């Protein structure tokens, strides 16, 4: 892999990420503790600390097209354990958002990205997750029509799956969160 650093592009990318992250990329020690504890590291193409370094170096194309940002499950193990209190999980979120905004479609992790999109739309319209709606849309779009279907009766029985009326009462507040982030 080769990178030619363009100072202006690097600064634009870094300041864009940092303003959304509310943290400085230079705070990272590059000690690798985040990668050491990451439960999905084995599936990633770049380790979390590499993502941070590459972001600092302005390697936008590489990080925004990486599998890593879509494979991160936001378990926050990395951020919890980070000796510098760096927002490792946060940077994954930020990079996902930038990728979506730029219209970059992950080839390797198409379904994850789709899930991400449906999930957020679901939150936006309901103020919380409507499991039924989420699964329906996701399964339709991915054409796995019967995926996880056998779990539905049990969940219904336990009241975990509601078919109607899952909207929260004050949707305006959720709308404000989305607006602030955009």
């Amino acid at each position, binding site marked *: 892999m080769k990178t*030619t650093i363009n*100072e202006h592009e690097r600064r634009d990318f870094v300041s864009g990420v940092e303003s959304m992250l509310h943290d400085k990329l230079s705070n990272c020690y590059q000690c690798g503790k985040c990668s050491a504890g990451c439960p999905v590291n084995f599936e990633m193409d770049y380790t979390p600390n*590499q993502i941070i370094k590459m972001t600092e170096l302005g390697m936008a194309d590489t990080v925004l097209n990486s599998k890593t940002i879509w494979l991160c499950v936001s378990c926050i193990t990395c951020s919890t354990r980070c000796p510098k209190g760096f927002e490792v999980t946060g940077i994954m979120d930020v990079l996902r958002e930038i990728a979506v905004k730029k219209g970059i479609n992950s080839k390797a992790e198409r379904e994850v990205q789709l899930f991400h999109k449906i999930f957020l739309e679901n939150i936006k319209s309901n103020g919380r997750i409507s499991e039924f709606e989420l699964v329906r849309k996701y399964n339709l779009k991915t054409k796995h029509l019967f995926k996880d279907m056998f779990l539905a009766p049990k969940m219904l029985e336990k009241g975990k799956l509601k078919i109607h009326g899952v909207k929260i009462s004050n949707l305006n507040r959720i709308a404000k969160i989305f607006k602030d982030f955009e």
Partner: protein
Amino acid sequence: MARIGVFVCWCGSNIAGTVDVAKVAEEASKIPGVVCAVDYKYMCSDPGQNSLRKMIREQKLTGLVLAACSPHMHENTFRRAAVKEGLNPYFVEIANIREQVSWVHEDKERATQKAIDLTKMMVEKVKKDRPIEDVKVPLTKRALVIGGGIAGIQAALDTANGGVQVILVEKEPSIGGRMIQLDETFPTLDCSSCIMTPKMVEVRQHPNIKLYTYSEIEDISGYIGNFKIKIKKKTRSVLEKDCTGCGECWNACPMHKNVKSEFNADMSERTAIYVPFPQAVPLIPVLDRSACLHYKKGGKCQKCFDACGPKCIDFGLRDEIIEEEVGAIIAATGYDLMDNSLYGEYGYGKYKDVVSGLQFERLLSASGPTEGVIRRPSDGKTPQTIVFIQCVGSRDPEKGVPYCSKVCCMYTAKHAKLFAHKVRDSQSYVFYIDIRATGKGYEEFVRSAMEQDGAVYLRGRVSRIYEDNGKLIVKGADTLSGTQVEIAADMVVLATGVIPKKDSDRLARMLGISYDKYGFFTESHPKLRPTESSTAGIFLAGMAQGPRDIPESVVSGSAAASKVLGLFSKSEYEVEGTIANVNEATCVACFYCQRVCAYHAITGKEIKDRNGNIVKVVANVNPGLCTGCGACVSACFSKSIDVKGFMDDQIYAEIKSLGV
């Protein structure tokens, strides 16, 4: 008849765990001449020593054998105990049954037998011991400090403040060394010359310090307490007494474009008659004859002489040799910088904007060639992007420098910070292998270069630099992200590593001190005797010993001074009596001994008859220099040299005791 006591130490379980100490004592008691043999848990403890002293009194012992640890550990402890009971200290012998037996063997039976054998040998040796008196050497209570950098200055001031006369010899026209060339110092960013010049002035004005600048050590002879020094005082071609340092001479000099300023690391020019920098101590110019038109054109130019008010320029002055006598020497000769041009791939010397760390330091400095404004050498423009490369001339075995230069990580972080402070919206990139920031406040300093001042650190070395379209293209790598990185920079600063001062090996040979394979002076013990050289009376300070930063150099200067003051606190210096002794009757004056002696302790001595005619010349041992190593003994063809305490008959008795 000898009355010998044998004391077998357990050293807790250190010895007793592997050696049957009771059996050793029992076997020792059977040796003729041994009147008592005991074992005890810790012979070195107070009760252990008391029982030893009680035994000497009660049994009227004439010799002691301690079967215990190495003589390096407690020989002196037991000798002191013996002296308190009126014995000569050299009637104490140590059988080392710890380092040579229990620590290196496992089989208890055989280890015990070896311990018994070693004890037997020492019993036979002690029977043949003779009293030895320690040698007393007179002390000249003056000290020589070689090198007027921060370490030498600190050593000179501390010694002088202790009431001792100091002679400070500096090779350059001014004291101040490398530190005065620096702009600001890590990690506090205080200005180097602000904290250095008061010390330099103090040296100049101190009643106990005699300062020789622009001078070199020509020869050193003698030994601890009695060194004779020849100092070559190179001529400045200026009558120092009359010079006021007014500057008329160097303002008048027509040669102001041709000579590179050493002080500014070749970044500017100086005149032929010059002071290296405005705060020089002493503020007396030097006439560089290799550059002066007066000498080149057969005396035609004498503009400086004409300009000089007190007429103190004398073109005919010559070097002087000054002789001084001192009792102790502190070597603080400092360091040089690695030759950057060894790295052809970085283009130092080829591309003007690739500069060394010291050159960048001068660019930052208010007293430097650009008066503190960062301008790149090629076109004088202020750079916006600088790439710093660490470990240039450090950690590179292929270039003969496997060691870490210790200061480069810190000064690079400092450079990056100062660059960010001085040039708005600038960007620095630092290529490193590891960051060594172990001093007080150092790690925080490096982090602040990254976090506050925005330096981007890339973990990797640079492979190549080339010029393209007015930019320096730096091809490096970042091993953390696993990428090859290419940066277009306006300027590149190489964090040049340090090497020993040129000719330091020559000085080391003159001083008779040892130095390592790189040329750094080696200490007597790396941990426990870090300021002593291998030769008594010669102490070390500063970077001459190896890479270190300013605080460490100051500490080492003070440490060396305290050693000198400690040495001079006694009226005479006592040398152990176990030194070489020549049998003048049998010596044939082949002087092979002189050739093998590493300490230059052997000289010729004329033996004269009543009428003063020389009968013969024999070898003579200087007790102040001899360390009792025994090299001369084994080299002597006529068996005319012995080391006291290790005489032939004693060694033979030891061997015979083994029944071989």
